[in-house]
């Protein structure tokens, strides 16, 4: 089918005098072809809805045990009940707050350190081996240690989140700074800027779009670690809700919790993307 459509497009272009059909409408299967934003959204929504419908049908057909795979409508029902009776939104708020506190802490530290690592070789040489080592340690492996250090309170959770984000982020920031073209730096210097001015007015501005993108991506990772932290030791938060529901085999509630995380992630991501588009129109 792909070949056939592509073939038509080609003929349409060669024989220009023939009807203008298809000339301005290339196949959606054109290799690396363009697709309008509306079409993209439509297709995205379409596949999601289709998947939900299939899921609903399978769950209702009795082919699978609904204890393991409840239908989407059941999950939605559970979600609404949880909002009313188990203050699910409060838990979601607690989780979001934890993520943002730990993430802000990680970002505030990672940005200057990452910038320094790429601005001064000596800082990079000193820190890179340590950061690279810690970066490869899986966060769950550090849970026992952090409980020994911080107990089971709020600090442990924030520490775990910070741990999972900071070391990743600092290398990404360093990379963003490294990628700033040397030409920009030298232009600034030949215009009389000192090092501080060059960093602030040129290098930082040049790296900013990449930085914001990396912050958005690492914020997503932060949610992963949040659930680990809340499962290990918590009496609040989405992770706690999910883990409690699991204990009683309340699959719909487990799934509802997962859905909440997904929704928060999706909304945050889209907001940050929109912000990126607005702030960096020049790209």
């Amino acid at each position, binding site marked *: 089918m792909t070949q056939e459509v592509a073939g038509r497009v080609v003929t349409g272009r060669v024989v220009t005098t023939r009807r203008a059909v298809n000339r301005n409408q290339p196949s959606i299967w054109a290799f690396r072809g363009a697709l309008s934003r509306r079409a993209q959204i439509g297709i995205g929504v379409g596949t999601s809805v289709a998947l939900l419908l299939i899921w609903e049908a399978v769950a209702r057909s009795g082919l699978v045990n609904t204890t393991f795979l409840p239908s989407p409508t059941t999950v939605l029902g559970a979600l609404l009940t949880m909002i009313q009776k188990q203050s699910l939104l409060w838990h979601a708020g607690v989780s979001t707050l934890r993520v943002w506190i730990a993430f802000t802490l990680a970002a505030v530290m990672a940005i200057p350190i990452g910038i320094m690592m790429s601005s001064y070789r000596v800082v990079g040489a000193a820190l890179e081996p340590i950061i690279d080592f810690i970066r490869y340690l899986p966060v769950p492996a550090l849970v026992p240690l952090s409980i020994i250090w911080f107990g089971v309170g709020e600090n442990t959770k924030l520490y775990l989140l910070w741990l999972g984000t900071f070391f990743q982020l600092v290398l990404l920031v360093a990379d963003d700074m490294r990628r700033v*073209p040397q*030409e*920009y730096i*030298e*232009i600034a*210097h*030949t*215009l*009389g*800027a000192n090092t501080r*001015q060059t960093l602030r*007015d*040129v290098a930082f*501005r*040049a790296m*900013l779009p990449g930085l914001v993108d990396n912050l958005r991506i690492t914020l997503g990772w932060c949610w992963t670690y949040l659930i680990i932290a809340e499962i290990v030791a918590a009496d609040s938060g989405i992770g706690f809700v999910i883990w409690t529901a699991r204990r009683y085999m309340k699959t719909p509630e487990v799934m509802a919790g997962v859905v909440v995380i997904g929704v928060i992630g999706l909304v945050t991501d889209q907001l940050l993307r929109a912000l990126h588009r607005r702030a*960096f*129109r*020049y*790209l």
Partner: protein
Amino acid sequence: MTQAYLEFHGVTKRFGDLDVVAQPFDIAVARNEFVVFLGPSGCGKTTLMRMIGGLDTPSGGEISLEGTPVGGPDHRRGMVFQSYSSFPWLTVAENVLFGMRYRKDLTEREKLARRDHYLDLVGLYEFSNAYPNKVSGGMRQRVAIARTLAAGSDVMLMDEPFGALDAQRREKLQVELRAIQRRDAKTIVFVTHDVEEAVFLADRVIVFSKRPARIMADIDITERLGAERPLDLRDTPEFFQLRTAVLRLLREAAGDEAGDEK
């Protein structure tokens, strides 16, 4: 050409064990002279120019501007690169204004007046509010030229600034640059490996050998072609002959594999 303005006194340069220059360099550039460093790729001509700008330091010898040894970079020696020559996050006008950002001797009003003057000079006034990604590659280079002029540089250092442009845009910009240089009276050191560009633009072409660099020839172009360089100068036999002579020199300079140098 009697009064030396920009001078190399026995300048040498080494990167590790690698000699950039074969012998200490002595070059004297007069005020308002348009000098082109011509040589095969990687011959070290760019390094020599960067040393004028203070972006590289000589391993030996000294470069002086009006008798004073040059140190680190400052706004008197402006740089125009081939790529990344303008800041993408600033509009055309903001880019030009940025050239004066660190000058404390100008008032805000003077800066704006200069910005408009140089935007006009390079024919970009109507594109003031456009971002660089919305204008052509040639316009981006004009932004860089306007920024450097607005910054108040006495010496403009240009590293293959038209290397990434198509042939028509390049010719147009060459004519414009030569006119700007004549009108604004600027000393320009221009690096290229394009013989035609070198002969068309320069008052004087210095031909370098391949690395380690040696001066193969120092040719006074203005003496032969005159100072005015209209576009149709390229079609004259004089231009053609000179171009061919320089091309031959460059082939010699590059050694055997020079066939692909244009």
